[in-house]
């Protein structure tokens, strides 16, 4: 029986500057015990639409911060509905760094995140609603102002409303004037809301 020398790197071997290892090798390397190998494999899979499921599976188990960052960065390079649906759950994560990476990813996925936005803005967890408003910060979507106005008109949590007011001031849309006044009435005993509404109205008028 002839022995054929393998041209593929073994699990745990990093190819620096050479040809990209095959997808199956990279999937194996994602499971390496060495975080540097997992990180490089995750980076190599950036933009590979066939790698979404494996990257999401690894993200669920990954404990190394740098590897998580690499995975989220690669998922961001792929984008689309399956990536968005796969990372939405991390908005409720206790890991602030992971949450922020996911928020940054979602800000660039306007079409894919838009169908989920009404549900996110109605999430029972006020922190998730705050992060949903954070996503709106740089989301290029025609409904952003409508969503923000709905938040300040209906949300009962002061910090969700405060986050939306901050953003309304940046957007500077005059349609928010009356809803802002109503918000101030709803939270009449909260000095921060009084301050934030005045600041937003100043920015809208400018």
């Amino acid at each position, binding site marked *: 029986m002839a022995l054929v020398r393998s041209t593929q790197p073994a699990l745990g071997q990093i190819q620096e500057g050479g040809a990209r290892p095959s997808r199956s090798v990279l999937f194996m390397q994602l499971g390496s015990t060495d975080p540097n190998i997992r990180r490089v494999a995750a980076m190599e899979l950036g933009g590979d639409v066939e790698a979404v499921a494996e990257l999401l599976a690894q993200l669920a188990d990954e404990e190394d911060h740098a590897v998580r960052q690499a995975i989220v960065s690669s998922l961001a390079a792929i984008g689309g509905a399956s990536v968005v649906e796969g990372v939405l759950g991390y908005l409720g994560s206790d890991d602030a760094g992971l949450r922020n990476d996911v928020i940054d990813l979602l800000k660039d996925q306007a079409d894919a995140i838009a169908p989920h936005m009404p549900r996110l803005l109605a999430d029972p967890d006020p922190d998730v609603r705050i*992060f949903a408003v954070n996503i709106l910060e740089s989301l290029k979507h025609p409904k952003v102002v409508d969503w923000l106005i709905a938040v300040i008109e209906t949300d009962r949590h*002061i910090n969700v409303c405060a986050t939306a007011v901050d953003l309304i001031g940046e957007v500077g849309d005059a349609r928010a004037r009356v809803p802002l006044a109503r918000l101030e009435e709803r939270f009449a005993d909260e000095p*921060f809301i009084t301050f934030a509404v005045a600041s937003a109205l100043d920015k809208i008028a400018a």
Partner: protein
Amino acid sequence: MKRVLIIDDAATVRMYHRKILEDCGFAVDEAVNGLEALEKAISTPYDLFIVDINMPKMDGYRFMAELRSRSEFQQVPAIMVSTESETKDSDRAFAAGANFYLIKPARPVELTTSVRLMLGEPA
């Protein structure tokens, strides 16, 4: 005059805290994330840091870890502020090196009292 660095990605929160503290005679600087705050802390001596938790680029926990890893900042007091009101959140802030934990939005008297307490000044 005691100098305070406010670290928060929300412009309105920074302005609100700045106004309250300046009205009480403190000098105030601002940073929009932990990374910018570290750069400012290295170049300017601060008496107190007021640190938000959820920020892009470098969140409050990572900022605190970086801050406390440097000998020159180990004794500088830090107040962490967050919308998160569960006990585990304040526990994590203290574990990260915070000296005090405030839940947003802080009322003016809460903020000034805690700042003076951290600076060893009469309330």
